[in-house]
């Protein structure tokens, strides 16, 4: 079986005036279905650029990015938009919910563009919210929800179209420790129980520790690709204790 994601010599070049900046210098990596991958690195290491390419939001300057056997680099803007809607779910650091719009309507958003009927939209959005324990919060607006709840709405939105891939860009960056753990448990649960491929960008090692595999970026290159503890004993006990201690 072909891997879910395969990249060959991905290069991304930005032009800042006359100066050309290489954000990615030939990334070749392969990610299988059902993997839980964390991408770590300092800011400017190229990890966000890489995520944008994986999320079909951006195109590489050179190289190949194959998603489920399809070369994304060759697709048009509209075809990539369609691919995002069908195969990829996004979770962002800043939640990125539409303000003054109910949780239900926020979760329905991807369905509008995939052409589901009105009744199906409502039903699937409600199911998705219930699955994340937000059944009683469907009519709340983002401002009426806690950070953790907002991120759960965002996850519900990411899952509503049954994507192949969940891309989470610093999903815990705006959350306190306890809520961060809660969100990470949800992501792990989705990966373990439902075989959803999760790729996570973070700069916090304790969050990266949840993943099975950790890719470390530096100056546009992958400097290490390690298989982690494969989910058992998730966090070092000391760290967990320390965090909870800080929290209370």
């Amino acid at each position: 079986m072909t891997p879910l994601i395969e990249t060959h010599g991905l290069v991304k070049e930005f032009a800042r005036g006359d100066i050309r900046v290489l954000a990615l210098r030939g990334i070749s990596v392969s990610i299988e279905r059902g993997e839980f991958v964390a991408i770590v690195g300092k800011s400017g290491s190229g990890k966000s650029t890489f995520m944008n390419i994986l999320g079909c939001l951006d195109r590489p300057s050179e190289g190949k990015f194959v998603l489920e056997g399809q070369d994304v680099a060759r697709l048009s803007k509209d075809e990539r938009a369609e691919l995002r809607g069908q195969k990829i779910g996004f979770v962002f650091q800043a939640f990125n919910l539409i303000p003054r719009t109910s949780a239900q309507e926020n979760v329905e958003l991807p369905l509008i563009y995939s052409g589901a009927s009105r009744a199906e939209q409502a039903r699937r959005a409600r199911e998705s919210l219930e699955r994340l324990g937000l059944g009683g919060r469907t009519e709340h607006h983002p401002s009426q929800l806690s950070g953790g709840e907002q991120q759960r709405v965002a996850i519900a939105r990411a899952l509503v179209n049954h994507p192949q891939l969940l891309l989470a860009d610093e999903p815990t960056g705006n959350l306190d420790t306890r809520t961060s753990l809660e969100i990470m448990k949800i992501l792990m649960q989705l990966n373990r129980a439902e075989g959803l491929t999760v790729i996570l960008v973070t700069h916090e090692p304790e969050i990266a520790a949840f993943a099975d595999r950790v890719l470390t970026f530096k100056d546009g290159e992958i400097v290490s690709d390690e298989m982690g503890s494969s989910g058992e004993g998730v966090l070092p006990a000391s760290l967990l204790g320390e965090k909870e201690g800080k929290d209370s």
Partner: protein
Amino acid sequence: MKFLRMTLVAALRALRRNKMRSALTILGIVIGVAAVITTVGLGQGASEAVQSQIRSLGTNLLVVVPGTRTRGGAHSGWGGASTLSVMDARALEREATGIRAVSYIRRGSAQVLYGNSNWRTTIQATTPSYLDVSDSAMAQGDFFDERDMKNGARVAVLGGTLVGQLFEVGEDPIGAVLRIKEASFRVIGVLESKGGSSFGSDRDDLLLVPFTTGERRILGATLPGVVEQIIVSARTETSAHEASLEIEDILRQRHRIRPDQENDFTVHSQEEIANTMGSVTRILSSVLMGVASISLLVGGIGIMNILLVSVIERTREIGIRMAVGAKGSHILVQFLVEAMILSMIGGIIGIILGLVGTQVIAHFAEIPFVFSPGAIVGAVLFSGSVGIFFGFYPARKASNLDPIASLRYE
């Protein structure tokens, strides 16, 4: 279709989120559309009023007045020089074939006394044919006849305004004796009201007497047989032009005007008057319409302005929509639909307001209210296209946003 409905729902939600702003944007369009509807309606009403007044002057009417049309020279217009006479009128009656009836008038003003009342009015000395030629009708009594004319009978026919000024309500004016310049006149009839004219004169404020009587008793006979206007009724509406040429021929001959000389009289046709007044109203209403369109344009710019602000403010939302699968065209359509909703709602309210406004103004200005479905369809289409036109630039700007930059936009 399904997508359009979704977009409509999304657009309505977006507009609801900024109620005040949406309402103010709509207000701009409302004012623009209402102004257009009102000016078009009033313009049509005014020209309708002018046309009906001209019709009320009498059908196929031609008026001959002394003097030429002034074009820079010192010629005088209506009734200036005394070049037309009773003999001219009789000649026309005799010789012109395209003419149905001829009348002539001389006017002056005098104080009319009755009992304790008195009123200064226009005294019009004319012929029995005046009733027919001027397309007037009797409200009461009779008009004077040829015998009154021959005998110089001291009889008078009154206009409605004069009756109101001299007599008590309910009093019968027929048979009453009036005094004008030391002579007594018996009232034999009252004319049906013609209403005010578009230039403010009261066409019912007059007293008619037989020409001979008027000349002798009231207006003075320093120049006997001189008339101010010869009023001619052509056989048919289409023959009015030929009749006017015929009149010109006959009068030139009678006045011994050489071919190289100008006429010493002018023939005004009803058509000419209608055209002049019609073009005046047309120019006025197109000027007003232009002004009104400017306000609609300003309303449209308001939509563009608001949408540009909205695109910037909702940059992140646009990024989110793109991330979850919206194509550029989806975003474009959404903003266009928002613009169209704003302009259509504004258009509909504007039409209602405009119609009400037209009716109110038409009522107070005493011009007919003309309901024009064309103007309404036009206003709806126009406001819709204002929405599309002014919405397109912001919508295009939104659809071309880069999703990555938009998602990070603060």
